[in-house]
């Protein structure tokens, strides 16, 4: 049996679960007590970076490793809480010196390098707003997000600056400072070398007096229509980061925690930076991309105790072993690992069981989204897992299945178990987004009758567990990342040959879904293999591989409603051989 080889050394005694009894935890819950668990800034106010870093200078953890960073060659660099406090203070002072005003946005376009973590926490400490971009974005998603977010500062590398920012920088005159992590003595015009700029900044102080409701983080998410949306999060979100780290991830100060998500996505910030530091753990950061052998080595050698990862990665690992054949897993001692969780898209029941059979630990799936800022629904360590279910709401979080008729505002709560409907949350949890930057109307549309509408379809069973059913809109979920069809279609429409484009998600075993584009060409343009490749190249250059379509097919005409809206849902149903549903609004059909 795989389990025997896995636990070939006696596991250390595990601490008691932070959430012991679910009903009791919910009944006894109060947000006031959750808030009181944080120390608050000296002299008042609340600041995420203070709670994550500086607070530990006085609680006995100052010289504990906060971040163990693994370079591409696996050489570790340890940053203690004390060192992290010093580095983030220097970054905070640098922003002050550069004349960046409180509340202005500092963007990063970086891999998982130490500078990313310093820029994130340093910006928060200084009361400036941090907005991380995924490094696999092409120039177009980068430009759109930095423009919408009024970027004042960008921290990036020389190569990415040259490829993804310099070509359009003049369109964003508000971008006053570009700090490069590797420019050395010779930064290109209009940029500074980060290390040199930091050199004579003081390594203490720099903490701004931020209030709980001050903007702290700007996380972008894609929309079905229109431009990406910048979800605004405030310093008070740290209450939820701490609480969910404690209850949903069962983090204890003695844990070595590895969240594999990139901070370019919200999971990688809430749980790849903030929560583990607030709770005083040691967190692992791996600079390299996912590789099964590397990951097994890290889990073993770094003695990871709590692991938070994603279905795409789990499915890649599942190819290497199963219950009857432990394969390469037999060579690794993962006995330190005591809790494994997954997020990003629903984890299939087979993957939960695979974890139990091969790792000796089932995966605990949980659910949340960019707008919620933290985990909302989870399978808990102490509670029975229902494989395939999202779990149950966090104490303090009220979730329901509702039916909402768009436009009328009418909403009804569906209390009968197993009734499909839209998943809704009662506003009031501290990490709820407080707006889409500059877009109050789009924000308002997310709420109805006192509920936040998540856009996800789900059902709740008689035991109170929620089950994900799909999206209520045309959003595509690829490798756990939400991709807006509009952004993909806009890039394709920029090409001279394209008249119409529709982006849909089609199933793919590893990534869950991949982006497929259906394209109608302008009159006189003929569809051939060269054009297909040219369009793929065009889209990839603009959007980057994470967003660009993997497959393009040609059509003469795309199905549209009377109002001219392309019916992506119908295209998807036809691609997948599903029932076509209500076609009453179809005006012109596909050819």
């Amino acid at each position, binding site marked *: 049996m795989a389990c025997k080889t896995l636990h070939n050394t006696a596991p250390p005694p595990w601490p008691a679960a932070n959430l012991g009894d679910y009903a009791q935890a919910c009944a006894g819950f109060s947000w006031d007590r959750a808030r009181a668990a944080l120390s608050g800034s000296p002299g008042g106010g609340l600041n995420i970076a203070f709670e994550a870093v500086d607070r530990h200078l006085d609680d006995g953890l100052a010289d504990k490793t906060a971040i163990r960073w693994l370079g591409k060659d696996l050489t570790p660099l340890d940053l203690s809480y004390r060192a992290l406090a010093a580095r983030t203070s220097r970054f905070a002072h640098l922003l002050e010196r550069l004349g960046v005003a409180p509340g202005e946005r500092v963007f990063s376009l970086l891999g998982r390098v130490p500078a990313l973590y310093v820029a994130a926490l340093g910006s928060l400490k200084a009361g400036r707003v941090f907005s991380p971009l995924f490094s696999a974005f092409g120039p177009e998603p980068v430009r759109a997000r930095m423009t919408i977010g009024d970027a004042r500062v960008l921290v990036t590398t020389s190569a990415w600056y040259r490829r993804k920012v310099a070509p359009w920088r003049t369109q964003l005159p508000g971008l006053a400072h570009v700090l490069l992590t590797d420019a050395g003595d010779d930064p290109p015009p209009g940029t500074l070398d980060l290390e040199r700029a930091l050199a004579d900044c003081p390594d203490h102080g720099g903490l701004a007096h931020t209030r709980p409701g001050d903007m702290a983080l700007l996380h972008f998410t894609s929309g079905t229509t229109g431009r990406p949306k910048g979800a605004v999060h405030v310093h008070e979100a740290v209450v939820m980061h701490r609480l969910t780290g404690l209850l949903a991830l069962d983090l204890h100060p003695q844990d070595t925690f590895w969240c594999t998500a990139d901070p370019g996505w919200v999971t990688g910030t809430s749980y790849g930076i903030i929560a583990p530091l607030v709770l005083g753990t040691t967190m692992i950061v791996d600079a390299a991309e996912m590789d099964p052998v590397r990951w097994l080595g890290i889990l073993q050698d770094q003695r990871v105790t709590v692991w938070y990862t994603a279905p795409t990665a789990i499915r890649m690992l599942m190819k290497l072993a199963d219950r009857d054949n432990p394969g*390469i897993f037999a060579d690794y001692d993962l006995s330190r690992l005591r809790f494994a969780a997954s997020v990003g898209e629903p984890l299939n029941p087979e993957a939960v069981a695979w974890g139990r059979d091969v790792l000796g630990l089932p995966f605990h799936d949980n659910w949340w989204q960019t707008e919620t800022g933290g985990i909302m629904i989870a399978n808990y360590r102490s509670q029975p897992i229902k494989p395939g279910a999202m779990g149950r709401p966090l104490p303090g979080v009220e979730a329901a299945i509702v039916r909402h008729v768009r436009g009328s505002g009418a909403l009804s709560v569906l209390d009968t178990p197993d009734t499909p409907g839209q998943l809704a949350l009662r506003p009031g949890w501290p990490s709820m987004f407080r707006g889409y930057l500059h877009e109050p109307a789009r924000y308002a549309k997310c709420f109805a009758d006192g509920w936040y509408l998540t856009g996800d379809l789900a059902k709740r069973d008689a035991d109170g567990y929620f089950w994900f059913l799909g999206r209520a809109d045309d959003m595509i979920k690829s490798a756990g990342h939400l991709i807006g069809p509009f952004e993909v279609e806009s890039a394709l429409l920029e090409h001279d040959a394209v008249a119409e484009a529709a982006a849909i998600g089609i199933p793919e075993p590893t990534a869950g879904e991949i982006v497929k584009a259906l394209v109608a060409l302008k009159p006189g343009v003929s569809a051939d293999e060269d054009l297909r490749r040219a369009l793929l190249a065009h889209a990839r250059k603009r959007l980057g591989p994470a967003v660009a379509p993997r497959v393009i097919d040609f059509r003469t005409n795309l199905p549209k409603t009377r109002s001219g809206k392309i019916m992506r849902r119908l295209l998807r149903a036809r691609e997948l051989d599903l029932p076509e549903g209500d076609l009453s609004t179809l005006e012109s059909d596909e050819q």
Partner: protein
Amino acid sequence: MTTHPLSREAILAIALEALTRVAPDLADESIAPDADLREDYDLDSMDFLNWVAALHERLGVDIPELDYPKLATLGAAADYLLQARAPE
């Protein structure tokens, strides 16, 4: 599957062709044989999997997941594929 002998140069050309099918944006780049494809050319893991699948199809070589790191560059991939196609 029968494998007729191919030179390293021929394999390199096939690997490059397969790569630019997966990532046509690289067609006008000159890709150094020792450049890290994921690092230097923004290939993501899905691209990489698609490329490996194409190599398997074109060259009839089984490439187990555990060997993926041996295909990090075009040159390394050519060496690996040449070796894998060599008669026992």
